[in-house]
């Protein structure tokens, strides 16, 4: 807990009085956070950052070698963060979202650093939590894994159930050092009219690994997410796995561009979408600039999409090097009634049978999802099976 005190003591003046220990997060907030995998049991996490609306609520880091700070404090403490990492992978002038984030007088968001060779065994968790309606969250996160470091970061972004409208803008810059591994599991659960605009950039050095899991539970009204990854070091790899539930009124686009810039790099993008209405666009572009291997796979399932619901899948490949081995596939289908009835003939309820099939579709061929993601996928299957 030494790191916890240190983090709290070093808070900037505008937030320090609001910070509380993790076990004092109130029940309503704790329930909302649990929905997106952020828990109040510190023993199961290596670190925690919770931001409620605009202010940090709880910050703690329990592992030596894991540093967790509000981004504003990190910029004050470490000039090299601003010089080398801040707005280095995402341009502040990219669009109006980044311009809005760059214009913040005191930046919101978190800074995580895992020091050289440190492997964190328990997940670190961060939550950007919207407790009030119609607010704008503008976040800027920086995550640095130094050479040989390992971290599983669970980022849960959630609005309270009574929050229907709001804006969530987020810039995230990930720096993965040589032979370092970052597994980023992002779980979103937003109100029906919340507009969500994450902008992420990731650079991976030699032998580094970036695994990016993105799950959207409650269908938000409007999500546009096109993260970009640069595999710059020999043998670097990236995996994107995205699971989206779209429903009536949703406008969701998820992409993922990966530049394979060095020999022996590899990338895999897998999108899984279930549409119970609204518009669901699956994108993904792999750019092979070196001898590399890459595959993008988009799969969608229509479950009672209504009159104007659709899934559009556009997996993309661009090769500039003759030794780039790249492939893609896309498929969209519906649940076959004979499959549902087959399970029913074993005594299983129709809704449960549909949920089983959706769950099977969502995690088919995806190995090692882990308990957090597995539980969320089960929730999506349950929701979609009930036509929500």
């Amino acid at each position, binding site marked *: 807990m030494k790191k916890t005190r240190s983090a709290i003591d070093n808070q900037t003046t505008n937030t320090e009085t609001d910070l509380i220990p993790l076990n004092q997060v109130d029940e309503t907030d704790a329930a909302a956070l649990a929905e997106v995998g952020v828990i109040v049991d510190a023993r199961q996490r290596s670190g925690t950052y919770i931001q409620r609306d605009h202010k940090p609520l709880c910050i703690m880091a329990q592992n030596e070698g894991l540093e967790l700070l509000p981004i504003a404090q990190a910029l004050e403490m470490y000039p090299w963060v601003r010089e080398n990492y801040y707005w280095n992978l995402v341009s502040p002038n990219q669009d109006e979202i980044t311009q809005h984030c760059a214009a913040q007088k005191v930046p919101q968001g978190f800074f995580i650093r895992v020091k050289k060779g440190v492997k964190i065994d328990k997940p670190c968790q961060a939550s950007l939590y919207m407790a009030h309606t119609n607010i704008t969250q503008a976040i800027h996160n920086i995550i640095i894994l130094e050479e040989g470091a390992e971290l599983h970061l669970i980022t849960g972004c959630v609005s309270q159930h009574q929050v229907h409208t709001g804006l969530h803008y987020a810039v995230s810059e990930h720096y993965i050092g040589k032979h370092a591994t970052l597994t980023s599991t992002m779980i979103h659960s937003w109100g029906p009219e919340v507009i969500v605009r994450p902008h992420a950039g990731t650079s991976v050095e030699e032998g580094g690994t970036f695994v990016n899991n993105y799950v959207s539970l409650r269908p938000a009204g409007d999500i546009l997410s096109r993260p970009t990854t640069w595999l710059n070091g020999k043998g670097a790899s990236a995996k994107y796995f995205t699971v989206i539930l779209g429903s009536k009124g949703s406008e969701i686009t998820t992409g993922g561009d990966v530049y394979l810039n060095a020999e022996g790099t590899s990338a895999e993008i897998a999108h899984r979408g279930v549409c119970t209405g609204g518009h669901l666009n699956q994108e993904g572009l792999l750019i092979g600039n070196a001898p590399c291997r890459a595959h993008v796979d988009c799969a969608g399932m229509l479950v009672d999409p209504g009159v104007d619901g659709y899934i559009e899948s556009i997996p993309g490949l661009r090769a500039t090097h003759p030794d780039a081995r790249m492939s893609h596939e896309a498929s969209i289908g519906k649940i*076959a*009634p*004979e*499959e549902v*009835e*087959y*399970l*029913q*003939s*074993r*005594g*299983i*309820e*129709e809704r449960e049978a549909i949920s*089983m*099939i959706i*769950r*099977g*579709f*969502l*995690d*088919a061929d995806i190995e090692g999802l882990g308990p957090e993601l597995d539980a969320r996928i089960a929730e999506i299957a349950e929701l979609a099976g009930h036509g929500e």
Partner: protein
Amino acid sequence: MSTLLEVRDLHVEVAGEEILHGVDLTIPEGEVHALFGPNGSGKTSLMMTIMGFSGYEITQGAVLFDGKDITDLDVTERARLGIGVAQQRPPTITGVQLHQVLDYAVDNGLCPREHLQELLAQARLDDFLTRDINGGLSGGEIRRSEILQLMVTQPRFAMMDEPDSGVDVEAMKLVGQMLNELFSLETSHPAKRRTGLIITHTGQILNYIQADKGHVMMRGELACSGNPRLIFDTACTSGYEICVQCINGVEV
């Protein structure tokens, strides 16, 4: 014996075309009946209709189970009343594994876990538990998987669609043993068998199961009923058209 299944004047349409034209069939509890007939005569349609699958629209008549009209019940409700089916060509369900269905039956008290392990070993399906249901299985493996699921869910009335189709001689022995066990006499008093309806083309299955009665379906109607061995032997030597000239004169 009381009647377990009663099909009354059943007319069924598939994709707007009438396939069954007034079928009447009664199966008393504890009896196993065999259903013969040429391809396309409506045997599978009858079985699927009894199970309640969509796509088989009943336009006239009724299906009664244990005295209750189940014509309007869905598939789950029929399964929970005690009707089960082993399909000839069951669908492959990507991402849903065999163990999930078996676990469901165990979790709902239909089969003790230890007994499931014994049945799995008997069916030689241990290696298929974590594979997609029916995915990439041979004909014999599909039969064993389907019969295993019935042995685990323990329906009062079990239907089999061509359990001997696409099965080699060696595998047939195993399928036969499983079916024999499924339809074996229960040690109750008075002793009784599980009730069943078995579609067979080759008749091989009759070497393993003692059928109490046979029926011939022709062009969507039950054209003949009687001794299953006699019917099958006549069909083999003379063809179904001759057979249904009612060789034994037994009424349905």
